[in-house]
């Protein structure tokens, strides 16, 4: 008899066809979803050598970000404070605390504390803190509500698209300069007008060309 294939074989091509479509769709979505910084980076919350709590310092004690991150208004980098800064207080406050042992050790040995970087952008992207603060972009816009975090975690993708979105239209993120370090800041009703005003006054024109960030 001449049949090479059983009758059922006729259905196979159909299955394969559908199969391929489904597979491709899944793959595309998979890459799109699992590949995007939204998935890979947001929520990054490494263990720190010292259980420093922003919740305690920034929220409960109400310290201003700039007390420790002194570079933030003048320099490209906000700067993680030197051990010295910790010791300013912790020579008096909880001088014996177990948790602070690494700090004291660093202070005595002169060996710096090795904090783990949470917010990281590629080396070829040049971000400047001072520029953003100066025009009234709040810390919160990029770092999230740090004051609510016992252990710091990344809340924004920090991807190029994410940067660009804001650079194309910063109006949602502009604040009065007095509020840049405020957490849980809620935009006023007239945010749009306010933003428009700021943009006009400061002649804001956030660069979206490549050299804005890449050199």
């Amino acid at each position, binding site marked *: 008899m001449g049949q090479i294939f059983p009758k059922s074989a006729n259905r196979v091509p159909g299955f394969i066809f559908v199969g391929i479509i489904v597979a491709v769709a899944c793959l595309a979505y998979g890459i*799109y979803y699992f590949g*995007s910084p939204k998935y890979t980076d947001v929520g990054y919350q490494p263990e720190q050598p010292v259980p420093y709590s922003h919740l305690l310092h920034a929220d409960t004690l109400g310290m201003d970000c700039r007390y420790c991150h002194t570079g933030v208004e*003048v320099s490209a980098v906000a*700067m993680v404070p030197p051990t010295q800064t910790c010791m300013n207080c912790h020579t008096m406050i909880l001088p014996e605390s177990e948790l602070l042992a690494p700090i004291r050790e660093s202070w005595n040995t002169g060996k*710096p504390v090795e*904090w783990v*970087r949470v917010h990281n952008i590629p080396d070829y992207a040049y971000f400047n803190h001072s*520029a953003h603060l100066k025009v009234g972009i709040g810390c919160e816009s990029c770092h999230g509500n740090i004051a609510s975090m016992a252990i710091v975690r990344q809340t924004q993708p920090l991807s190029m698209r994410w940067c660009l979105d804001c650079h194309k239209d910063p109006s949602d993120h502009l604040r009065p300069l007095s509020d840049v370090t405020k957490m849980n800041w809620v935009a006023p009703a007239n945010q749009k007008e306010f933003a428009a005003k700021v943009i006009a006054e400061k002649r804001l024109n956030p660069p979206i060309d*490549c050299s804005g960030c890449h050199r």
Partner: protein
Amino acid sequence: MNMDKNMSELKGKSYWRSLNHLENNAEYRKFAESEFQEGASEVVDPVTRRKFLSIMGASMALAGLVSCRRPVEKIIPYVTKPEEITLGIAKHYASAMNLGVEVFPLLVENHEGRPTKIAGNKQHPTSNESALNPWAYASILNLYDPDRAVEVSYVDEKTTVEQFAGVWTKNYDAYVANQGEGLAVLSESFASPSLSKIKDEFAQTFPKARWVAYDPVSDENIYKGVEIAFGQKLRPIYHFDKANVILSFEADFLGTDSNMTQNAKGFAEARRVKTEKDSMNRLYLVESSLSQTSVMADHRLRMSSNEIGQFVKTFASEFGVINESIQYDGRRDWVKAVVKDLKKNKGHSLIVAGRQQPAEVHVLVAAMNLVLGNQKTVTYHAFDKAVVSDSDGFYALVSDMNQGKIETLFMLGGNLVYAAPTDLQFASALNKVKHPIYLGTHYNETASRSEWHVPTLHYLEAWGDAISHDGVLTVTQPMISPLFMGMNFLEMANLITTGEYLKSYELVRKTWDSILPMDIFESAWQKSLHNGYFSGTNKPARVSVKGNLNTFAKNIKPLKLGVDNLELSYKLSPQIHDGRYANNGWLQELPDPVTKITWGNAAIISSTMAKKLDVENQDMVKIEYDGIYMKVPVWIMPGQADYTISLTLGYGRSVSGRIGTDIGFNATLLRTTKSPYITAGGVKISKSYGQTAIACVQDYHGLDTEKLAADAIQTRLPALVREATLDEYRNEPNFTRDITEEYPEVSMWKEFLYDTGNQWGMSIDLNMCTSCNACTIACQSENNIPVIGKEQVLKGRDMSWIRIDRYFAGDIENPEVVMQPVACQHCELAPCEQVCPVAATTHTEDGLNTMTYNRCIGTRYCSNNCPYKVRRFNFHNYTKDTPDIVQMAMNPDVSIRFRGVMEKCTFCTQRIAGARNKARLEDRGIMDGDIITACQEACPTEAIVFGDINDPKSRVSELKKQNRDYDLLSELNLRPRTTYLSKLRNPNPELEQHA
């Protein structure tokens, strides 16, 4: 910078102790990575950046996956932050560099205490704005030279500075006892108050000992000449800004001669033309070999070096300086015209002669200047606290060494085993010295033959001082605590003299105690540290001719040259000086301003000679002079006098680190004490076999000597480098634009109008460019441009972002030379952009043609489509094996480029960004002068000006308004943002018809 900072900090730079750990690298790197945090992240910065790009392949292989979970990265803050440091903000400190008796006042850029870039110190009276010469710029790289000597060595064993000091103190008393019998110090020339002070003490402590200064190449002949003429030890300083007519006998005052930057500034001022109404100076140049200065010559006469002596006499007799009538059968008309011109400009003329000319010539020159009443254009200053090179003293010392009279010889710097004239046999003389002690930066020829070798600290690692000719005191303050163990000259000299090891800081302070006014010392000292100098004066001496000049003139005897009786002259290398910078990659790869040769030297001969010898470029020849011979490739240059050969010194080093060893050929082999600069006659040359590849960045192996190409160049030249004589310019002020016809502009597109905000542009004045190469080096330093090595240059892959194109016009033997700096022109309609498939090169609204390295996939299409060919491609991973220490010289504001990526001039976009941000923080707009590009900063003649062309009052707009302004390749209508001002010459009408 806040002045009330306490000194110990500046001095200690406590936060730099880290770098003392450099020896055990593993720990050091870990520390380095930790000490500096990202954004300002330092030493490791380029590494990570590079690493990043390299793994991009892996991490980006999936669409959208820029940052998958990255390896945990550490931030390590300071423990105690030095308060003058703010992370991410560069600091600038004043300092200074000494080169012989020359002083380069510096402003050093520090990133977290790591010096990365130097520039001239504007505030300093003797400084030419922020300009420097390539040597000074590149000296920053010497600080991070991976081949620096890192340990004190005694014969073969490694020891320490302290041990060495200990050993010396033991013998010290003995020498004090015998008044320094058998003790000698051999240093380079210097102009340091502290060092001179110590030298005087030395003389007192050891009356029988000797301290001789010697430089392989120096202005000694000039000084001698002046001394003979005026009877006092004086140093001539030229003021070209006051001279309308200049006659130069082989003086390369815009090139390798002393005070180049100041000379260039003055010369430029007298030559700069804004409108056709302005006047400009005139330069007559007589020389044997095409020099950098010849670029500016209005009349150039080709003449062998020794004939020049006779020529000078001709002039001398014309001026009645000597009463001997000269039978000169050469260009009488030339002499007549020039003399007339000089006389016409009495008091505003200047005659200079090259350091290679014998003292007698300088006698006559000095006398002539006096006769011409050029008291303003050349002033003579007493050597204040300067010690100059003294060959005779050196020769005498060597003969004593040979007779075993010298027991202990301190060599402070220099590298005489390599550089001393061959007939001295310095090496063998050194063997007869019991204790040769060498203080030098590298383990080199001399170190290898010394009992002790003590590393010299880089000038940015220790304290020092200097005094410039006009008496201004300059302080050299360290920017970084020593990376490796070692001593600086002061410390060593002091140790020798006093037997105790004091730090340079104390020594300098001691000297300055005696100089600065007692009452306000501390403030004065702080002020000097801040400004980098303490003003002082050194009035010009009043001079008159002493003695009978004729007798000296008699010593000048011309001799007839011929094919087998050649003249051989030795020149300082414009790149690696006398060899001291042989291990400096930037300088090795820097093209010679005129020959455009990199990575080596060659015997320069005229084409007539070449024909006679039947040799071509790169052919090996054998040059012979009394019994000694060397083999070297030839390079044919226009404008070279027949029967003359010129060789640059400094090459062919046998012991000099990974970069400098065995590059080029050692000309010193033929150099003798009799004729250290010019061997007139007795030199033979013969064709040898084989060739040696010469890495020339222009005219591929003399490609444009090929007829077809040569003609093409001559037809293009008038439009490329637009040029006219001053008279022509006055007659038709718009000649520049009239050279090419303007085409009506028809476009199929509605083009983008760059009409709002800042619009960056640049203007380059071709009338000012002396092709000194400072811009090229400054750019390399600012923009982390890699050094790629001879092979790659030979393949035609040089990376310089701003190159200086050199063209010859007219007669091949008496050419006119023109120079044209070319960097990215930032065309508004950039042809490179539209062809990039991935939009890696695009335009910004303020008119920059930006190159986004991290987007580039390397199709090289943009480079193909660039008519100026200014784009540079990373064919290999050129930064792959850059040693960590060299990476410390990298500018953290500029990314390191990875393999397969295109790069090019960015108009220093990082500086623009910096200025923009600064302006933002200060709530103001960017003002003219806020942004100075690296090349502009470096230019000694202010030929390069950058700024906002949208601001009609900015300097650059003013320049672009001039009628000499033109676009390069204007017919392509690319609207380049860089435009040129055409070149002018000011020939003597009386001579033109003859020329």
